[in-house]
């Protein structure tokens, strides 16, 4: 925001309150109400006016308070924001970022723990990304804002309390190349030889814990943080699967028609002769997000991931 006066934040309670997760804390004081806008309580309004602001040369960063509240803005995102660049033959870029705290694990009530990323990944014209760690969150949000395309930036709310050293002075590569290709590059966060585990956002930490646990049982698991859901860096996963011969994909969103299905299909196409076992998926069930008393069973926890690893190795 200091670098580019055209960047502005919009959302509910993001001003003096600093957002319900305090992500924008202090920004209202520094940048004032014109650049940190407490909007009326209307998601379609937030996204729709962001579209207009982007046309006027601004770079709006919208905060949706909780995952379950993106749907009043869904129409504007999928029918307008996603399509304007295409409809205008590239004449009207849409540099809009939509930040969405998402996912479960915090014991919240209904509509406060959803994983709607696949709905957006299914929509052409949007980029859909999710950081898994503090340093990545720091660089990815800057690259998202620098992107000329609309970016759905899904923030795993269960990881808001994770702490790590972040070098905030280190320059972030905001070149066109870094933004357009680097932003969607997956990353091997833990090398291994027996099974590849792939996930994004909140599940990466679970996958790393699973790899730790498996190590004690004598298995070496490679963990990949996909970072981007659309586009999907299949090449990085394929390279890993060619070495391990096995892939387990995990995400909190329901498995049915989820991001894992796309990855499994593509790995099936590209690595057919390298696979020792079918690609397995672990994730949410085909149901509305359950009451919090059941969320531990609903979420793809350590045990369910390890169970899938066992099943993969049993082939």
């Amino acid at each position, binding site marked *: 925001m200091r670098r580019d006066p055209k960047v502005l934040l919009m959302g*509910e*309670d993001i*001003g*003096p*309150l*600093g957002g*319900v*997760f*305090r992500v924008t804390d202090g920004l*209202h*004081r520094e940048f*004032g*109400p014109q650049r940190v806008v*407490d*909007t*009326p*309580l*209307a998601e*379609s*309004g937030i996204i729709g006016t962001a579209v207009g602001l982007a046309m006027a040369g601004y770079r709006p960063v919208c905060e949706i*308070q909780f995952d*379950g*509240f993106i*749907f*009043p803005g869904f129409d504007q995102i999928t029918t307008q924001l996603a399509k304007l660049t295409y409809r205008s033959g590239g004449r009207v870029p849409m540099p809009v970022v939509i930040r969405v705290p998402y996912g479960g*694990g*915090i*014991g*919240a*009530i*209904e*509509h*406060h723990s959803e994983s709607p990323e696949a709905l957006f990944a299914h929509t052409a014209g949007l980029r859909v990304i999710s950081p898994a760690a503090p340093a990545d969150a720091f660089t990815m949000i800057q690259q998202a804002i620098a992107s000329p395309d609309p970016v759905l930036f899904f923030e795993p*709310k*269960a990881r*808001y*309390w*994770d702490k790590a050293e972040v070098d905030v002075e280190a320059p972030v590569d905001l070149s066109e190349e870094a933004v357009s290709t680097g932003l969607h590059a997956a990353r091997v966060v833990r090398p291994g030889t027996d099974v590849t585990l792939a996930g994004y956002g909140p599940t990466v*930490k*679970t996958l790393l*814990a699973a790899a730790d*646990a498996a190590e004690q049982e004598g298995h070496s698991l490679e963990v990949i943080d996909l970072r981007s859901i659309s586009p999907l860096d299949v090449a990085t996963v394929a390279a890993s699967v060619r070495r391990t011969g096995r892939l387990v994909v995990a995400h909190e969103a329901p498995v*049915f028609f989820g991001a894992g299905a796309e990855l499994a299909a593509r790995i099936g196409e590209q690595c057919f002769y390298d696979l020792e076992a079918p690609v397995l998926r672990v994730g949410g*069930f*085909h*149901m*509305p997000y*359950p*009451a*919090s*008393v*059941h969320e*531990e*069973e*609903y979420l793809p*926890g*350590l*045990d369910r991931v*390890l*169970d899938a690893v066992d099943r993969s190795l049993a082939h």
Partner: protein
Amino acid sequence: MDVSSTTDTHPTPVTTSTSADPDTLVQLLDPQGRRLDHPRYAGWAAHLDDDAVRGLYRDMVLTRRFDAEATSLQRQGELGLWPPSLGQEAAQVGSGRALAAQDFVFPSYREHGVALTRGLDVRALLRVFRGIEHGGWDPKAHNFHLYSFVIGSHALHATGYAMGVQRDGDVGTGEPDRDRAVVVYVGDGATSQGDVHEAMVFAAVTNAPVVFVCQNNQWAISVPTAGQARVPLSRRGDGVGIPSVRVDGNDVLATYAVTAEALDRARSGGGPTFIEAYTYRMGAHTTSDDPTRYRTREEEESWRQRDPIDRVRAYLGRAGRADAEFFAAVEAEAEELGRSTREYCRALTASPATAMFESVYAARHPLVEEERAAFEAYQASFAEPTRDDELHAPVSDARAAVAL
């Protein structure tokens, strides 16, 4: 404290309407507990004798006691979250008591006092906030729908329900037990949602028997009403042709009267009404919220002077309309409700995890059955407790900053 910048963002609305002045709101009981006359609305509360007013007082005290208990249960870690109704008892009890049994209510998520007036066992409200279920009661048992957490979404449902009532012919028959109306509760923030605007458009053009009760409690989490509207909210109704009224929401007799009139119009075929109940949320937005970040103690104190329960107590006490025995009995009843609420809450335990697969669809669904079978097989494979416990971050940390 950054109140000045709040004001920067949301300048006080400039308006020529005298109704923007709270002093000109419909009022039948002043803050000192004196009953007032009103040319249009006094008649709608005229039949409320001492006995009836004592009943309203009791409802408000019970609501407050229940709410206070739920708030402390949240503090003790027994509930994940609680949206307090403190300060809004008159808006809720007054409007709720104006309803007939056959009327249907679509609440938002703070209408604990309305639930009480519907005869619902209010303790069942805790099931949602303890994370046991998403609902917890049968909407049809007391014509009180489930709480709605997506702001404004239920305004459309209420209007649609009212359109159904209309089609059933239960409007304007003149039979007091047959004619029905629908009431929907929304907040001041909710009025900004497209859904609420669309509901008002549908209600107006179909002349649906629906009453919109907007509890303007001055804040939508941290955003003051000036961040949603530059005119009194009741004027939103004018734009779509819905008769509207602003009422002192801390005056239980006035909210009763304006709601009774609106319901009568709806039931008799006169169409929708928009009521702005001007009130104040004395507590936090939810137990996760910190109001000191966005509003002043002085503001809260000035509203404390207008407490909805105090004024009825003053009214009843002044002319000996209620004696010490009555007040003691209400107090005892409230204490008992508090105690049984605590007991009820602590006794609420989780259903088996397989319960989450139930009711996803009304009819058989192969995918759900397949996933359920796989889940059961997986669960059966465990002899001992799971390894998940190590990974989960302390939930209390995560909850600390979660608002509704």
